């Protein structure tokens, strides 16, 4: 055992570095931590917010209308999918009608596709924080509606989509809930098989722990022959 001790500090440092590295990447304001859930109710509400609000400008092209029926976590009934898609095919992705050229004229840039947005940014917490992070610029440089506490550099091209800025305090709960459900929805579509992955993983790991225990037992039994 003692002779292996030297590897311990190395491993220790490697492990200690890992999470530290994650934080060091952005180093901005700490994000809000909403309760991200992937139950059917939240995901369907999030989908509704996505279609009603986000899809005005953003797409999620890797998610098709058919997927909304197919993924068991959402399992939207056919009738509702037909209502959502209008004359689009089930094979079409959730894409916006805003053309890139028009978007450039209106917002100065093309809004990013949101299919994997929670993976390319810092998770659902980041999306939620952005959606509820519009404020008045304390230094007065950035116009209202484009100042965001959580956006790197604070100047975001996206106009406050849920009108969080200057919202009526009575509506705060409802806006927070919209932001939460759409963040959950985006986290889900960024990796639609994540729940299956986690549940399957538990069985796989349990099996491997069992197998390893048997192998350890076998190894100990066989090595009884060897004299030291």
């Amino acid at each position, binding site marked *: 055992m003692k002779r292996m001790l030297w590897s311990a500090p190395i491993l220790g440092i490697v492990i200690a570095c890992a999470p530290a590295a994650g934080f060091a990447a952005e180093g901005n304001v700490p994000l809000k931590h909403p309760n991200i859930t992937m139950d059917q109710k939240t995901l369907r509400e999030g989908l509704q917010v996505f279609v009603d609000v986000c899809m005005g400008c953003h797409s999620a092209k890797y998610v098709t209308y058919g997927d909304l029926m197919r993924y068991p976590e959402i399992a939207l009934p056919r009738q509702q999918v037909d209502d959502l898609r209008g004359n689009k095919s089930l094979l079409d992705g959730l894409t916006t009608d805003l053309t890139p050229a028009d978007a450039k004229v209106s917002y100065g840039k093309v809004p990013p596709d949101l299919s994997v947005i929670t993976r390319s940014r810092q998770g659902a917490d980041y999306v939620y924080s952005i959606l509820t992070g519009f404020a008045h610029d304390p230094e007065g440089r950035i116009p209202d509606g484009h100042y965001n506490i959580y956006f790197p550099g604070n100047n975001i091209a996206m106009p406050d989509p849920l009108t969080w800025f200057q919202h009526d305090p009575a509506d705060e709960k409802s806006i927070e809930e919209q932001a939460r459900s759409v963040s959950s929805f985006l986290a889900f579509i960024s990796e639609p098989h994540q729940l299956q992955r986690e549940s399957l*993983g538990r069985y796989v790991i349990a099996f491997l722990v069992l197998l390893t225990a048997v192998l350890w037992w076998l190894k100990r039994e066989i090595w009884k022959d060897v004299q030291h």
Partner: protein
Amino acid sequence: MIERMLNSSLAQWLDERSGIVGMIRKHVLDYPTPKNLNYMWNFGSLAMLVLLLQILSGVFLAMFYKPSAMATDGGYTMAFDSVERIMRDVDYGWLIRYIHAVGASAFFFIIYMHFARGLYYGSYKKPRELLWIVGVIILLVMQATAFFGYLLPWGQMSYWGATVITNLFGAVPVIGGFINELLRGGFGIGDPTLNRFFSLHYLFPMILVAIVVAHLHALHVVHSNNPTGVEPGKKGVIPFHPYYTVKDLFGVGVFLTVFCYFVFLNPTGWGLFIEPDNFSPANGFQTPAHIAPVWYLTPWYSILRAFPDKLMGVTAMGLSMLLLFFIPWLDRGRVRSARYRPMYRQMVLLFFLSVVVLGYCGHAAPNELLKTVGRVATAVYFGFFLFLPIITKHEKTRPLPQDV
């Protein structure tokens, strides 16, 4: 059961024509192995396992992956789309992709541990110099394979990582520009680069398998070193089977458990195995805020950054890999294992620490403090090679045991 299989008429038929049974007996079942190997000796078999896993998962990914930078809607490309199709539409595609992505990191972790063991216990020393050299070649081929593979998802880190590293080669005097064009096949990283990197990413593992066979062959000529570094006598060796087959299998069990934890529950490895920026499609007009190679290449990246001059940085980085080849001759001591070499033990531990520190510095966003730390670690890294011949010539060693 194994005996029954080897004595079967089919096995005998094959044996008469190929000598296969004799080979299995000589190189697997009865292969004499020191009885005192510790668990650090498990990493060799684990490396083989991961190489096979990478090839298997890679072959399947290649059935669905499309190496094309042709633009599609939303700023994406065919390549990126095909990776997302694997993640979403192909049955268990996500699993195969994660096995491959986590496997790359696992492979490097295992190989680094394998190297650390070899360094610590003096496994590179006579008569195992060639074994060591082949091992360093394996590491270089692995790094090249990983570099080619990392471009394939065609995300931001793929693109900018490849840009930075091909530019590195551009710094080589005289032929730099030529190498650069050879790698890129265009004026920048583009569709031709992606196509050839895919081809090379498929080719290099085959080369790797061939070199691994050479590595194993070299091993079976000189046999395994052991923690004492003393050549074992007749009583010091045991047959490989069943003792090391079960021990290696137990190691495989432990490894697979940890591996599956990552594949199923933490596939991006806190952003170390698959970086968040690589989920943004490659964009030649916008560099990510902070580019760093994947963790297993960061020590060498740090050495590159430690020098204020481009050519010097590139030279130092090349030298840091090249020097590994010469360790068997730089170390002039007679004793192998660091257990009996107090001075060497301190040195090699400091060397390991420098690699880890360099790795951290290369991963983190650069600042003044880390720059200094990185330079100190670079000095320690090269200091190891510099002082190795001097110190080992006069070092005092502790008495060696008679046998293992």
